């Protein structure tokens, strides 16, 4: 292939800039030109875009002798990217290359930000290269005559595939690909992925059941990473629980001052707002050189920060995962990670955001937000050394996304059941879909489901001949507006009275404010004036005190890799064999734990029974990570509740879990062991999930994605309130009247089985069953239990009769 005119043209073009292709790029071009599909494994900033883009260009040059003059060739290459922000940068790089190579191809972008004018233009003439988000692929599929637009398409590249895999957006990609492959069996598919633990599986998911020769191309890149911990001077005075880390701010400042440009990552948006404010307070001289960047800040402001980062005019940017993806910022030489990143991959990715000069080392500092987090830091370092990178588990059986997709097809040109059934079955996500389930889904969309004979008046799709169509213009419009799988709580835009957007805030937060209250957003203190047209109007606040909003966001659980490492580290720490500085510093904490309670040995499970004002607590420490603990805690609570009418409040973190009750918990060394028995495990797990609200919570997102809950037309939210119904209501209704509902089943599965590896749970339960269980009765809260006790995310489980519970309760007093 090297001797083809296309390849030669590329080599010459690069040579003119004193550049040569990287080995992995040549490998990728070779496989691509052979007609293979595959995966390129390369980190950002090392030429991954060109490893595939130029392959398509070479092919074009080889096939078209008139390549310098042929225009308007229709869509050739579809480039899928998860972030709209990335699209622009990629597009620019491609256009530059095309221009210098004298190829009159057009590069277009299609995302939520694309203007109406551009969309119309694309309708008339598709560019040769279209950079698109997964949602926009479905929007194109929702338009009449979509097949024509994709007529000449021969290659699809899915960029940042590791980022999309493992989420429902990945399922959207799979389904979109299945339809495009249905239109053109000869389609070539390539993915670009960062290193994850299951690259082969990632490729399988991307390929579905297409039979093509595939290849995985790995870029040979090794980055040196230097990890250091910022340690508290007096560990005894450092908080035992919490997530802010502000007490160590004064130690982060010298690191920031000595660096050129620093990125300070926090785990939540509120944390980033607080850190930004506190740093400005401590170092007012940084004003103008420090910026804030997170997902709820207005896009224009974020772009400003990104540009400033490129030009090196900022000393510090406080950010969240909002800066995880994207082009490299050359001036960044230091990264500070506040609080545990909960995963090796994320930690490495963030470390990789620094040190982009050749031969530079990526420097990352870890700042613990509570004392025990230092053990996590040590576990993280070990996991990194052992290269234990997490896998991204593909989502399976996402019925809600499938329902949305079928509606999308129904809204455009309609679909033929058998044809689409074959395509859908060919995806990884739905390969195990049964004909019964498919029938249920079609029924649900046409008559509302078979369980209810009286599903009169329900019409989403109509069968016309062999095809299913949506005939209601109103329903079609509503559907197109809500294509996507990102479900967020109602957010309102925040704008200055005098003009200028700042960002978005959750409706729930604003609903609790009155005019005159101050809150901070984007690092500014704002005074709430009023809400008009679904926009929050504010002015600059003169108040010194302001509330930092909180945004509802999931808690990041520790990855199972890190969980294993954590357990090992805790045991080393407790046995006194650990050498790391981070752990040695913790000695006084461990001494206190030993004094008040006990330090478990490798073959022991520690349980603490403590009585406080809140009630009777049982703390259990398996050190298996939050996800396993959530399941184990619920199971234990349920099993106890079967013996005895009792109500539990359940909390957990990555080290252990808590059961709290208003009555003494009937567990001691005579019966503790049997609660960890593997007998009847599966059925007990199912029953315990049913006893909590976990499935109900998962149902909300599922109901929105599947189109059951209408979130309102933008700007017209009030008019459609009559169709808004809380997901909880629907959950109740389905639970009571339609228990075979496939979406209910998905909710239960998502709540439990898909969130943890059942094999891992069995393994831990079995280990504990054969362990020695040590139960202590501390007179005070211990360092181990403290972080769990203060956790506010709680689950409830009860086996008591409602009336018995009410008799012990009182009315809640509002302040």
């Amino acid at each position, binding site marked *: 292939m090297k001797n083809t005119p296309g390849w030669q043209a590329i080599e010459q073009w690069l040579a003119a800039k004193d550049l040569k292709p990287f080995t992995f790029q040549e490998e990728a071009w070779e496989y691509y030109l052979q007609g293979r599909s595959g995966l390129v494994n390369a980190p950002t900033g090392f030429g991954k875009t060109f490893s595939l883009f130029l392959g398509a260009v070479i092919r074009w040059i080889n096939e078209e002798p008139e390549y310098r003059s042929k225009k308007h060739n229709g869509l050739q290459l579809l480039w899928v990217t998860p972030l709209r922000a990335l699209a622009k940068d990629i597009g620019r790089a491609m256009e530059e290359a095309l221009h210098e190579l004298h190829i009159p191809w057009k590069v277009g972008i299609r995302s939520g930000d694309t203007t109406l004018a551009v969309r119309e233009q694309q309708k008339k003439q598709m560019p040769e290269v279209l950079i698109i988000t997964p949602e926009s692929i479905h929007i194109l599929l929702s338009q009449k005559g979509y097949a024509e637009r994709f007529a000449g398409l021969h290659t699809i590249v899915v960029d940042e595939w590791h980022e999309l895999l493992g989420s429902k957006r990945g399922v959207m990609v799979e389904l979109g690909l299945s339809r495009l492959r249905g239109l053109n069996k000869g389609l070539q598919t390539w993915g670009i992925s960062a290193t994850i633990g299951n690259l082969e599986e990632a490729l399988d998911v991307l390929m579905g059941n297409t039979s093509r020769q595939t290849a995985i191309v790995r870029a040979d890149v090794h980055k040196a990473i230097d990890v250091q911990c910022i340690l508290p001077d007096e560990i005894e005075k450092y908080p035992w629980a919490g997530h802010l880390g502000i007490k160590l701010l004064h130690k982060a400042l010298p690191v920031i001052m000595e660096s050129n440009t620093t990125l300070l990552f926090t785990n939540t948006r509120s944390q980033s707002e607080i850190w930004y404010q506190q740093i400005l307070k401590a170092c007012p001289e940084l004003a103008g050189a420090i910026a804030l960047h997170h997902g709820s800040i207005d896009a224009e402001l974020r772009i400003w920060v990104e540009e400033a980062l490129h030009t090196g005019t900022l000393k510090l940017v406080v950010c969240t995962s909002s800066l995880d993806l994207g082009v490299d910022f050359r001036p960044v030489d230091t990264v500070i990670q506040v609080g545990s990143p909960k995963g090796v991959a994320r930690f490495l990715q963030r470390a990789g955001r620094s040190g982009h000069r050749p031969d530079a080392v990526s420097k990352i500092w870890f700042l613990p937000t509570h004392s025990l987090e230092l053990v996590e830091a040590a576990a993280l370092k070990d996991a990194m050394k052992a290269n234990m990178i997490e896998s991204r588990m593909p989502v399976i059986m996402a019925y809600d996304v499938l329902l949305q997709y079928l509606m999308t097809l129904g809204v455009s040109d309609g679909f033929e059941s058998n044809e689409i059934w074959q395509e859908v079955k060919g995806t990884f996500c739905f390969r195990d879909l049964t004909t019964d389930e498919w029938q249920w889904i079609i029924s649900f969309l046409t008559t509302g489901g078979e369980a209810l004979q009286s599903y009169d008046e329900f019409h989403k799709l109509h069968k016309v001949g062999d095809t299913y169509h949506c005939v209601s213009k109103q329903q079609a419009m509503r559907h197109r507006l809500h294509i996507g799988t990102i479900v967020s709580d109602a957010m309102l835009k925040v704008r200055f009275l005098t003009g200028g957007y700042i960002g978005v805030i959750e409706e729930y937060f604003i609903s609790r404010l009155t005019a005159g209250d101050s809150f901070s957003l984007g690092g500014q203190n704002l005074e709430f004036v009023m809400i008009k047209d679904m926009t929050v109007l504010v002015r600059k606040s003169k108040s010194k005190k302001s509330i930092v909003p909180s945004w509802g966001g999931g808690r990041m659980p520790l990855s199972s890799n890190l969980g294993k490492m954590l357990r090992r580290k805790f045991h080393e720490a407790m046995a006194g064999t650990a050498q790391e500085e981070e752990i040695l510093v913790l000695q006084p904490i461990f001494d206190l734990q030993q004094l008040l309670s006990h330090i478990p040995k490798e073959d022991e499970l520690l349980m603490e029974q403590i009585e406080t004002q809140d009630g009777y607590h049982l703390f259990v420490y398996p050190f298996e990570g939050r996800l396993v603990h959530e399941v184990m805690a619920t199971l234990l609570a349920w099993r106890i509740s079967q013996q005895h009418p009792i109500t539990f409040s359940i909390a957990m973190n990555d080290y252990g879990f808590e059961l709290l009750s208003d009555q003494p918990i009937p567990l001691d060394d005579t019966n503790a062991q049997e609660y960890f028995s593997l007998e009847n495990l599966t059925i007990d797990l199912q029953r315990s999930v049913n006893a909590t609200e976990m499935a109900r919570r998962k149902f909300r997102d599922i109901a929105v994605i599947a189109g059951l809950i209408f979130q309102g037309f933008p700007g017209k939210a009030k008019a459609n309130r009559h169709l808004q119904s809380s997901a909880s209501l629907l959950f109740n209704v389905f639970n009571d009247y339609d228990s075979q509902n496939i979406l209910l089943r998905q909710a239960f599965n998502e709540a439990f089985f898909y969130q943890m590896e059942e094999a891992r749970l069995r393994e831990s339960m079995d280990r504990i069953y054969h362990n020695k269980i040590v139960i202590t009765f501390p007179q005070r809260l211990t360092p181990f239990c403290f972080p769990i006790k203060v956790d506010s995310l709680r689950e409830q489980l009860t086996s008591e009769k*409602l009336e018995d519970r009410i008799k012990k309760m009182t009315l809640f007093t509002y302040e």
Partner: protein
Amino acid sequence: MSLEDTAFEFKGQHWRLSAGRAIYWEEEKALIVADLHVGKSAHFRKAGIAVPANIVQEDLYRLQQLITKYHPEKVLIVGDMFHSSANNEVQYFKIWRRQFAHIAFELIEGNHDILEPALYEDLQINLHQVLSLRNFYFVHDREDKPSVLEGHYLISGHIHPGIRMVGAGRQSLRLPCFYFGIEGAVLPAFSGFTGLYSLHPEADSAVFVIAEKKIFRIFQ
């Protein structure tokens, strides 16, 4: 197990508060309910949201049981009887209504009651904006109360009241309730297909929570 009720003497009258979400007023021989929302699930189905139909059947069956238990002379519906425009559930109600031709149905109009007046006539339902009986004003939304109360006590629905309860061991529950405040009372929503709005009880108010088939007065 049948629906429990509890006796409540209030403002000189005798009331039976039922866990079936209704009040039987002994002096007036009236069964009082609010927020039936007949047709809500059909309304959703028409918009393409698949909600099962059994809700209306269950709700009307419960109303039937209450009528059979108390033998009222009239049924007062304090608003939102029907959820929106005519649909099959309204037809179902028409047939159901025939069982109680001898009982007067008085509907105090709510924001959702938008059917044609002729239809109400056909269903033998008498319409009112506000209903005054003894010294009680029945109005759907308490915000629409008459400007001069003159010693009348308000009885309304609309908000689908719930109350929050807490207990040791960080327990918390939200339950539907009957709420008797200083100025007026709020009835729980009759229909199962409604949400709950948490009330902040005033001092000296009477609160009765509904727990499945039982009803409890909760003292502050």
